[in-house]
């Protein structure tokens, strides 16, 4: 009952014309920020923060949250069309999304991304509304050993991301793990693998690697192939530019998977949306009947990660609003915003400011509808980008990548790094090394090492802490199962061969 009356008062607030306007401004800005590689929600919100001083706090939080979840919608656009991840969370979308575009199915891929985002985004808000306080308590049970197990589970996905050669996938993942160790070590303040470079003291930003390896590597490899003037086929007619019924059917499980995985990972302050989308993609592949087609452009390979990174938003707001604990750069700056407006985010925030909470929740339902209405009609428009002849398209991708990286750090050094990783991506493609395991290793490496060292400090050096805590033991069990998947399928293949009549 409390939920119903809360929600009703929330809608009353969110539907006030001025708040509707702020919601629209937020989701529009968010979509734009998502589409532009590099510029992300934390930077945008930080820069808009001074403008919100004169706003009504309810309108302000509605707008800033709109930027946050709106960016998750926009992030898939350049991932699918150009293989340039628009946001760090959209890296996984590149894997199958861009392959779909190369097959002339950019429209359905963009469409399914919007639909999955809408479904999972809404489920995320539902979760935030219904189970926030108890779930926040559960999140506190998660500590370093559990994070290590979660990330080990994530890393075990590498066997699912492998192409033809398991060895090459593992080597790529190792390279990612190595890059993740660069920079100043948190525990000892020692510089590792900085090669005397000042800029490497803080490590390498993974978005630089992702854009280099995915986008530039792809462009370099394709340039060599001397394709015809029109790089990618774009079918005529709106119907072929939107997902078909079959696409929706294929993505059924992905919608659920993305919503649930994204939300739960989001609730954990130490994980994040990139991990959520990787886990969801891996899970989708693990249970799929057409596992071998993943990576060559399957629609559920877009739906799962795009769903996960959207429902992650709802999840990430749980510890922020119920405990005042931010789990990511974006939620940290939302926290700073609440403090600047005179609120005190913490365990008493929701009970003492129910109007703010319910207004925000209601605005997120509205915002997600706005985003769907905004993004679906844009799909046919965006898909036309691929009509550009390659001599225009490839320089555009180069330019977009460079500008994207430069807006993150404003550093020329990162641009050099981008080129280095572009070359690496090109070489990996030539030698048939898969790029996804490298990114996976890089995303998980730093957090995994940290969690392991923290766990060992907690247990004074005993590895038993990983197996003796129930959540971590279960997650490690999952990791082992995933590692065994290729073995099972090989055994299955032998069995089938043995069963064949003579």
């Amino acid at each position, binding site marked *: 009952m409390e939920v119903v009356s809360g929600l009703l008062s929330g809608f009353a607030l969110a539907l006030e014309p001025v708040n509707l306007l702020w919601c629209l401004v937020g989701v529009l800005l968010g979509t734009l920020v998502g589409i532009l590689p590099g510029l992300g929600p*934390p930077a945008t*919100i930080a820069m808009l923060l001074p403008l919100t001083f004169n706003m009504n706090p309810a309108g302000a939080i509605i707008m800033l949250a709109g930027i946050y979840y709106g960016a998750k919608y926009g992030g898939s656009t350049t991932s699918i069309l150009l293989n340039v991840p628009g946001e760090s969370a959209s890296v996984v979308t590149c894997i199958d999304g861009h392959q779909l575009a190369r097959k002339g199915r950019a429209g359905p891929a963009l469409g399914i991304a919007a639909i999955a985002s809408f479904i999972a985004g809404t489920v995320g808000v539902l979760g935030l509304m219904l189970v926030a306080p108890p779930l926040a308590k559960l999140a506190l049970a998660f500590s370093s050993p559990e994070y290590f197990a979660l990330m080990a589970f994530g890393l075990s996905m590498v066997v699912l991301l492998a192409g033809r050669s398991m060895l090459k996938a593992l080597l790529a993942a190792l390279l990612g793990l190595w890059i993740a160790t660069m920079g100043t070590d948190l525990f*000892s303040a020692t510089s590792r693998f900085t090669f005397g*470079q000042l*800029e490497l*003291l803080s490590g390498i930003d993974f978005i630089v690697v992702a854009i280099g390896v995915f986008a530039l590597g792809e462009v370099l490899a394709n340039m060599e192939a001397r394709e015809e003037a029109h790089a990618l086929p774009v079918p005529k007619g709106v119907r072929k530019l939107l997902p078909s019924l079959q696409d929706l059917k294929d993505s059924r499980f992905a919608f659920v998977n993305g919503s649930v995985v994204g939300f739960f990972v989001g609730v954990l302050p130490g994980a994040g949306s990139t991990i959520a989308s990787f886990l969801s993609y891996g899970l989708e592949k693990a249970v799929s009947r057409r596992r071998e087609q993943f990576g060559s452009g399957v629609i559920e390979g877009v739906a799962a990660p795009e769903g996960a990174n959207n429902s992650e938003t709802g999840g990430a707001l749980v510890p922020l609003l119920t405990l005042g604990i931010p789990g990511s750069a974006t939620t940290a700056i939302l926290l700073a915003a609440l403090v600047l407006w005179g609120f005190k985010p913490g365990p008493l925030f929701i009970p003492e400011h129910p109007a703010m909470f319910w207004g925000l929740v209601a605005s997120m339902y509205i915002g997600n509808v706005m985003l769907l209405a905004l993004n679906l009609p844009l799909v046919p428009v965006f898909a036309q980008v691929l009509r550009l002849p390659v001599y225009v398209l490839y320089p555009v991708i180069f330019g977009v990548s460079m500008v994207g990286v430069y807006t993150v*750090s*404003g550093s020329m050094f990162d641009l050099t790094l981008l080129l280095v990783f572009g070359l690496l991506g090109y070489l990996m493609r030539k030698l048939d090394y898969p790029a996804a395991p490298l990114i996976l290793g890089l995303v998980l490496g730093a957090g995994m090492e940290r969690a392991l060292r923290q766990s060992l*400090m907690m247990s004074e050096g005993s590895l038993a802490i990983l197996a003796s805590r129930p959540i971590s033991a279960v997650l490690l069990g999952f990791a082992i199962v995933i590692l065994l998947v290729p073995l099972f399928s090989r055994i299955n293949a032998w069995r089938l061969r043995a069963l064949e009549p003579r």
Partner: protein
Amino acid sequence: MRRTPSTVKAVGCALAAFAGAFAPCHALAQEFRPTQPVQLVVHTGPGGGSDVLARALALMVERERLLPVRIQVLNKPGGAGAVAAAYLAEKKGDQHTLGLFTGVWLTTPLMSVEARITLRDLTPVARLVLEPALIAVRADSPYKSLAEFVAAARNNPGQLKQAGGSITSRDNVVRQQLQKNAEARWTFISFPGGGERIAALLGGHVQMMVIEPEEAGEHIRAGSMRVLAQVSETRLPRFPGVPTLKEAGFDVPVVPQVRGVVAPPEIPGPNVEYWESLFRRLTRTASWRKYVEDNQFQDGFQSAAEVARFYDELTDRMREILKDAGVNIVR
């Protein structure tokens, strides 16, 4: 959101440097006024502590009409402050660039060979705020006072755990000082984010943490956290009942967490005076006082000359403390 295109900026800087080099210094003494937007360099990305302070500061300067031009925040993240310091060092003589420094600008060069720029290489302008801290445990913790916690640690060396930031953070400095003072030992576990530290404490995975008053306030009010002592010379207005370290029986010098302003190297004296007086006036405004109070900082204003002295003393002290903590000191 928009940065000035770099070429325009570069030309602007060159002109400014040119003007600076050829204008007679005495004329400047009376007449220095910034003529173009001032870049305020911070070492964190958007949303970091310094970034938020810088943007609030820029807004207050604008509202109080203290400056004829605008202040733009320029993020130079990376290298734990080293990238921003190096950027300022490159801007030698630039009259329209300032930086917002914190304690890491001081500690990073002590332990990283790559970080060659110390605050001494830059021009100190003013110290703005001190950030006090609290020592907190979970509300159901058996330790009712800092002395009880330390005694328990002494009886079970290495068993109790503290969540904190990096090994060079203030969290660990406080631990090192207390351990040395009381001949006790407990484990320090680094977490990169403040949120993760609080989650580790509330989840019962560690027993103690050093926390900012603003972060702790709501958890105390909700009854999930208890404060044992405050890391501050005097009691904070909102925590009148909590003893300072000294009052709790631990006579260790308080190593302050500071934020202040520096300028690039080779800035003429009158310019420094101009900036110093600007920030002095800023710290006297009502909006600044409210900001300091809301965030539970302490007014820590010091003039340029005082900052230089403060810096030297703090460097010596930090070098000792970090050496004790097992950090490899390179400078």
